[in-house]
């Protein structure tokens, strides 16, 4: 910080207002107003959480977590939806983590931050993070299902009906992988930046090649960051509904997805259909609240773990310096 101070005086000239400061006043009004904003946010959070907790607590039981829906979703549990969600994010992680980590390594270790390729890739990542999730859904349908899946079908299964050119867990997870790619990249990059240069130089001095250095020194060091990124990606992916609506999520399946081209049930989608299409909304309400609570607990616990790892990582960096 202090080393930058000298330069900033020059550059931020415009930002220092030419004002006479009145010495009076303790800023109660701005302090109060901004604090009110904080209070409202906390209050809304408390209301939402409280509502869902109260509504869903009574429903959650071992039976609820391990049984499929019954009687047109008026009874039973959400096991297939939990299973589908987990299977979905596992496939997604398999696809997204290597690519995300490699991209981060490329950006941090291979190119200078000012080169045009880096800039271009960075712009792409930032924009990918901002593409509306429903557009990912459109893309998944147009590219993965119609183009890739349809292509495989015409090549390998010209006689049969659609085998791959239809909504399936593999297409949904690949769509989600693209959606969560920026999360993994950003998180890994942050971790890579914290690795001291001496480590790399030490490795090179001992005769390690760049790839050896990356594989044996850098990736192990960046592991917490990679882990954080993966967990955040999972938490994000588990909650997204719009991209999977057309690429693989099913209203109801009597079996668990066992093949890559099966459809699947998913918690978020299950919430959506139960809230809007269940046969009897009043009767499903407890189950609906229970499902919401399960999804929230899943995403929150994943997030807390990610935050914990990250803060430990940051602390250890501070300690090292």
């Amino acid at each position, binding site marked *: 910080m202090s080393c930058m101070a000298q330069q900033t005086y020059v550059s931020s000239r415009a930002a220092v207002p030419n004002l006479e400061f009145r010495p009076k006043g303790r800023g109660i009004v701005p302090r109060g107003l901004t604090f009110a904003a904080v209070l409202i946010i906390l209050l809304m959070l408390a209301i939402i959480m409280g509502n869902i907790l109260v509504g869903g607590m009574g429903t959650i039981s071992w039976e609820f977590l391990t049984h499929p829906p019954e009687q047109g979703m008026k009874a039973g549990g959400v096991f297939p939806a939990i299973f589908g969600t987990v299977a979905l994010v596992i496939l997604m992680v398999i696809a997204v983590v290597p690519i995300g980590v490699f991209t981060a390594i490329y950006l941090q270790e291979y190119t200078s931050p000012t080169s045009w390729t880096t800039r271009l890739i960075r712009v792409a990542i930032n924009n990918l993070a901002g593409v509306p999730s429903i557009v990912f859904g459109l893309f998944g349908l147009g590219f993965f299902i119609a183009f890739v899946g349809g292509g495989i079908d015409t090549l390998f299964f010209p006689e049969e009906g659609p085998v791959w050119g239809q909504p399936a867990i593999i297409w949904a997870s690949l769509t989600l992988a693209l959606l969560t790619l920026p999360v993994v990249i950003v998180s890994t990059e942050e971790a890579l930046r914290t690795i001291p240069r001496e*480590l790399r130089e030490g490795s090179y001095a001992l005769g390690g090649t760049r790839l050896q250095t990356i594989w044996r020194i850098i990736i192990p060091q960046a592991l917490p960051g990679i882990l954080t990124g993966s967990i955040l990606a999972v938490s994000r992916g588990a909650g997204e509904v719009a991209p999977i609506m057309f690429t693989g999520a099913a209203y109801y399946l009597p079996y668990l997805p066992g093949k890559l081209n*099966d459809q699947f049930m998913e918690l978020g989608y299950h919430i959506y259909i139960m809230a809007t299409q*269940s*046969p009897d909304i*009043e009767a499903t309400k407890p189950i609906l609240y229970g499902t919401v609570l399960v999804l929230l607990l899943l995403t929150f616990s994943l997030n807390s773990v990610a935050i914990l790892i990250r803060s430990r990582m940051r602390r250890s960096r501070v300690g090292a310096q």
Partner: protein
Amino acid sequence: MLQARLISTDSRQTYNSNSKGYKMKKMLLTGMFLIAIAGIVVAGRNITIKGSDTLVRLGQRWAEEYMKQNPGVVIQVSGGGSGTGIAALLNGTTDICEASRDMKEKEYKLAERKGIEPLRVSVALDGIAVFLNKGNSVKELSFAQLKGIYTGAITNWKEVGGTDTRIILYGRENNSGTYAFFKKQVLNKEDYSEYTQTLPGTASVVNAVSKDKNGIGYGGIAWATGVRFAAVRKADADSAILPSVESISSGDYPISRDLYWFFNGKPTGELKTLVNWALSEEGQEIAEAMDYIPLPKERAKAGMID
């Protein structure tokens, strides 16, 4: 720690562990490749049923029971609306399309162009009920009144014998067969008022009307809880009739319809067994137990595939 790690990086060890890592990676990659290939080749086919939200519960129940009796058969059921199902049939992405309406002429033409031969089988009956809030004093509505209400010509309950409050319209998304059927039967194909709140399922409509004392909605009678039915008359001179199993299967209730399964060509094998089972007494009893209206026995028998 750091030192230890660097010291251990002498070249021999690098070579050994690297080659081990390489082998592992190679194995992993080969494995993944093999799994992908195997996945592509082995992937079998299940029976897929897709379409009408009105029928999805019945389809699901039938699938459940059929699979229980015939282990080894896998049926996957999804909803989304009749339009969704028909689109899937035309796109070749479903075996059975559930629909609460017939295909439109345009869709038949499209099917022809795509080389699909739709075969229609009635599997159950359904009545479209008009839902009112329990607090609403209006008891009966004529087709003319309903048309006025849903096209936006009548906007106040007072005009149809109720209190002086605005009518709040609830309807289905435009992919639903219910939407299309109601439009054709009651609205004479005119457009719904733009003020109609379109909700993604009949249950949402029922739920909305049950909470909104000025609301009106429509949908299959199997769904109604917490709302009241309006008695409906077709012409002003007719007597108003409440929807019920009897009035619908006798054909007295004016807004009733067949619910269909569409196939691509004449079903054979497992598909044929499934549809004949659904039309059997056992299948139709299940339909009745799920609050659908079973087909009259002769019609069910006549519909079976030989």
